[in-house]
C-alpha cells in the first residue's frame, strides 16, 4: 500500500512529477532548483542508477550543500569528472549520451518551444531575458526534455515571442526537417496545475493529469491555447511518503523548496 501524506506543498508535488519521468540508468543534465531536486528524488527512490551532470563541465557531483548555480563551488569537490562546456555540451550532449534534460522558460507554446530571450519584439524588448545558455542545445539534443513552468496564460502562450529552444517547432516533421537527432524532443510539461504530454501524431501538448485541488476548467482558462484533454485524464498522484522523506530528510532539510511558493508555484 503506497502512502500519500496530505501535508505536501505544490513545489514538492512538481518535483516528484519530475522525478517520476527519470528512469533508472538515465544520464541527466540538471540545473539548480527543481531539476536538481527531481533528479535527486529519483536517485533516492526508483532510479538509483541515474547519473547527473551540469553543463559547466561537472559529472556526478556530490555537493555538500544545495548548489545555487551550475557553476557553484560546492559542485567541485567530490565529483567524478570535471571538464568544461565542450565536454558536457559537446562530448556528452551533442555526442548523443544525454537521456534527460530539464528546462524552464518565460514562455512555452503547445509544441514545447521555449522562450528565454525576450518579451516583446527582439529589437526593442519590453523585457530582455538572459538568452539560451544551455537551453537550446539541451532542447535540441536530449532524448527527453522535461519542461517545468508556472501555469498561467502568459507563460503557456499561444505563440512565444521568441523561440530560443526548439520543442517540436511548428509541428510534426519539423525537427526531422532541420536535421535534429531522431527520438529527441520535449517529453512533458509540468506546471503547478497539472502535467501535459505530447501527442505522438500531432506533437501538441495535451493535459494528462490535473493536480489535486485543480479543475479542468481552471487549467483550460490558464492555458494560452485551446488545450486538448486526454480521454484518460486523471488526478496527479500526490507525493509518496518515500518521495517526501527523500526531500525533507536528505535533500532539503531546510525546506528551501518553499521559495517556489513565494514565486507563485501554488
Amino acid at each position: 500500500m503506497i502512502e500519500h501524506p496530505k501535508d505536501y506543498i505544490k513545489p514538492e508535488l512538481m518535483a516528484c512529477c519530475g522525478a517520476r519521468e527519470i528512469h533508472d540508468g538515465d544520464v541527466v543534465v540538471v540545473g539548480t532548483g527543481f531539476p536538481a531536486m527531481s533528479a535527486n528524488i529519483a536517485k533516492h527512490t526508483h532510479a538509483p542508477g541515474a547519473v547527473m551532470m551540469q553543463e559547466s563541465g561537472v559529472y556526478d557531483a556530490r555537493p555538500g550543500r544545495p548548489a545555487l548555480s551550475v557553476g557553484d563551488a560546492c559542485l567541485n569537490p567530490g565529483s567524478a569528472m570535471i571538464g568544461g562546456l565542450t565536454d558536457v555540451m559537446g562530448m556528452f550532449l551533442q555526442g548523443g549520451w544525454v537521456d534527460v534534460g530539464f528546462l524552464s522558460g518565460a514562455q512555452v507554446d503547445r509544441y514545447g518551444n521555449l522562450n528565454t530571450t525576450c518579451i516583446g519584439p527582439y529589437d526593442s524588448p519590453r523585457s530582455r531575458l538572459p538568452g539560451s545558455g544551455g537551453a537550446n542545445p539541451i532542447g535540441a539534443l536530449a532524448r527527453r526534455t522535461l519542461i517545468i513552468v508556472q501555469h498561467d496564460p502568459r507563460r503557456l502562450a499561444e505563440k512565444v515571442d521568441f523561440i530560443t529552444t526548439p520543442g517540436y517547432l511548428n509541428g510534426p516533421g519539423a525537427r526531422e526537417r532541420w536535421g535534429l537527432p531522431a527520438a529527441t524532443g520535449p517529453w512533458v510539461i509540468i506546471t503547478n496545475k497539472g502535467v501535459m504530454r505530447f501527442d505522438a501524431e500531432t506533437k501538441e501538448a495535451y493535459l494528462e493529469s490535473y493536480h489535486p485541488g485543480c479543475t479542468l476548467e481552471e487549467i483550460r482558462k490558464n492555458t494560452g491555447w485551446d488545450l486538448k484533454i486526454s480521454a484518460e485524464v486523471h488526478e496527479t498522484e500526490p507525493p509518496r511518503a518515500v518521495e517526501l522523506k527523500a526531500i525533507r530528510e536528505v535533500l532539503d532539510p531546510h525546506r528551501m523548496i518553499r521559495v517556489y511558493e513565494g514565486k507563485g508555484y501554488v
Partner: protein
Amino acid sequence: MNKVMTMQKAIAEHVHDGDFLYIGGYICRTPFSAVHELIRQGKKELTITRGNASDDFDMLIGAGAVKRFISTFISLGVYGLARCYRRSLEKGIPHKIEVEEYTNLSLPMMLMAGAMGMPFIPVKDMVGTDLMNVKGFMGEDKYRMISSPFDGSPVLLVPALKPDVGIIHVQQADEEGNAQMWGIGGDCKYGANASKKVIVSCERIVSRDVIGKDPSRTIVPDFKVVAVVEEPFASHPGYTPGFYDLDFSFGYLYQQASNTEEGFRAFLQEWIMDIPDRASYIQHYIDRFGYAQFRKLQAKFDYGFPVSYAY
C-alpha cells in the same frame, strides 16, 4: 622570459580600445581583477565574449566599455536578470550594445575551432529556432546552413572566433606563463587558446619545477602568454576552487546596487574607481565587512592522494 607585471601594466600594454576580448570564468575563476582594471582605465568599444556571462560582463556593459557582445546567456544567477544588460538593451543606457546570440554549445565550439585553427565548425543545435532569424553585427557570417557533403543532411556551420586578447584567472602559473587550473572549466581552455595573446592572473606564482609536478593541469602554455599577474582573491565575488568560496552576500549587494543607474555608479566609484589595485580592494573589503567575513570565504583544505608522474 619573466612576464610578471601588475594588472595596471598588463591591461594598459596589452588591451586596446576596440579589441575583441575573451574573458574566462564560469562563476568559477572569474578574472574580476582584470575586469575592474579594464573599467578603471576606461577601455572602450570592446567586443567581449564567453559562454554564460555574469556580473563581470554586466559591469563592463554598465560602465560603457562594451560595443559588442557575442553572447549565449547573461544573468546574475540566483539574483536574477542582469540589470545593466537590461538597461542597455531596453533603454539604451549608457548605450545600446550590439549582441550576437549563440548557445552554450555553439559558442564554446567556435572558440575551440579558433584554438585549433579551423575556419568554422559544424554544430547540432540552434537550427529551427529564432536564433537563426536574428543576426547582429556578424550579419550573414553568423552561420551558414549547408547540405552535408557526405550524406546530404542539413548541417549548421558556425565561424571560428579568434579574440585579440584572452583574459583568464587560474590557481597557479609560473613566471613565464604556464597556467594551471582545476575545477569547473567553462570554456576557459579553448577561449584562452583561441586568443592571439593571453593575460593570466593567478592566485600564486609557482616555480617551473612545481608546474612540472602536475603538468596535466596546464591549460595554456607560456608561449601564448604575454602577462602574468599574481593577485590573490582576484575572482571575488566569484570563487577559485581550493582558495575561496563564492560571496553570496556581495552578489546581493551588486544586484541591489545595479538595480538603479545611480546605485550602479556609486558601486563603480566605491569598488573600482576609488580603488587603485587588488590589494587595496581586499583591504577595502575587510574594512567594510570585517576580517571575519573575509576569513569565512577562505577555502578549507581537502587533499586527495598526491599525484605522481614518476617512472
